[in-house]
């Protein structure tokens, strides 16, 4: 009885003094779109440090990475969130691709195994997100089934989405094409690597997570 009372009181107190819950902001998309590059850019801009490793070989990020308590400011407003960099989503993984990229067979198989787990985790974590940035490689076909499945799952869960058409520094990058594929969403063309248009991106974050 005492215990019940205690827990009741602590619950009430907790609720009274609870700080506003931090928004959980996820990075999703197919491998190699530039999720981690963007996560690093955000962390560098607002915390002065990096978040994770970037590679031109797919599936560099194979575990969910969380950076807590990022606070960004734009036009006099402030937004606090926890940033979640995910391995992203793919429907297939072939270790032989890693071998072709120069990896030893054993290491390639290990990477493939970890990558499958990473994708499963990314899918599990969909439910935990308060808002999501979908990072697409603007030089690639935006209308792939993986992208559509990600968008559809977020929509089904009523999670706000901002789509980024990344790699705008490359000539082939085509924001208009990405926008045309997802007309019901706001699409912002950026270069996560070089920082092009990044202020517009931060403004966009306020719209989905603010």
């Amino acid at each position, binding site marked *: 009885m005492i215990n019940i009372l205690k827990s009741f009181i602590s619950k009430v107190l907790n609720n009274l003094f609870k700080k506003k819950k931090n928004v959980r902001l996820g990075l999703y998309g197919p491998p190699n779109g530039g999720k981690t590059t963007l996560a690093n850019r955000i962390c560098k801009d607002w915390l002065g440090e990096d978040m994770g490793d970037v590679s031109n070989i797919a599936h560099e990020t194979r575990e969910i990475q969380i950076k807590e308590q990022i606070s960004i400011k734009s036009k006099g407003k402030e937004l606090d969130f926890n940033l979640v960099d995910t391995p992203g*989503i*793919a*429907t*297939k*993984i*072939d270790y032989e691709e890693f071998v072709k990229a120069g990896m030893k067979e054993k290491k390639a198989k290990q990477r*493939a195994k970890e990558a*499958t*787990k990473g*994708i*499963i985790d990314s*899918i*599990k974590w*969909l439910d935990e997100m308060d808002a999501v940035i979908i990072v697409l490689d603007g030089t690639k076909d935006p209308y792939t*089934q*993986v992208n*559509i*499945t990600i968008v*559809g*799952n977020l*929509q*089904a869960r009523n999670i706000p989405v901002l789509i980024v058409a990344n790699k705008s520094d490359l000539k082939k990058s085509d924001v208009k094409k990405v926008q045309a594929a997802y007309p019901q969403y706001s699409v912002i063309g950026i270069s996560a690597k070089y920082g092009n248009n990044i202020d517009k991106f931060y403004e966009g974050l306020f719209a989905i997570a603010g």
Partner: protein
Amino acid sequence: MVTFQFVPYHEIEDLGSARRVKRLIDIVKQNKIVLLQGRLKEEEEADLIAIAMEEIKGKFKGIELAVINPEEKSKEGLKRLRSNFYNLVLGDRQGLTIIGPASIVKDIKKDPTKIELLTKEARNRRK
């Protein structure tokens, strides 16, 4: 040779989500390409990908997936309402879902009027 297996919607209609996904993956793992009448729920699509990941081992390297939805391109205003209404009445038996083993199907390109299924070259498959 490539084998297709047609799965009419009523074959999965009464199954729970987990069993639906399992039924389809089991066919794909027999190296066949599934042609499913209609479409899965969004969450089932994600589950299908997760299960495919769990199953990756040896020759099985995952899946290629494509959902063809005739109303997709025109989801606006009245048409959207109408398609939502059809979805309500018909469940999700509209459209077509293609699921193939990634070792056979390299890519599925779709546009409103045609589906291109790019298969791996035979000599690749034989080795």
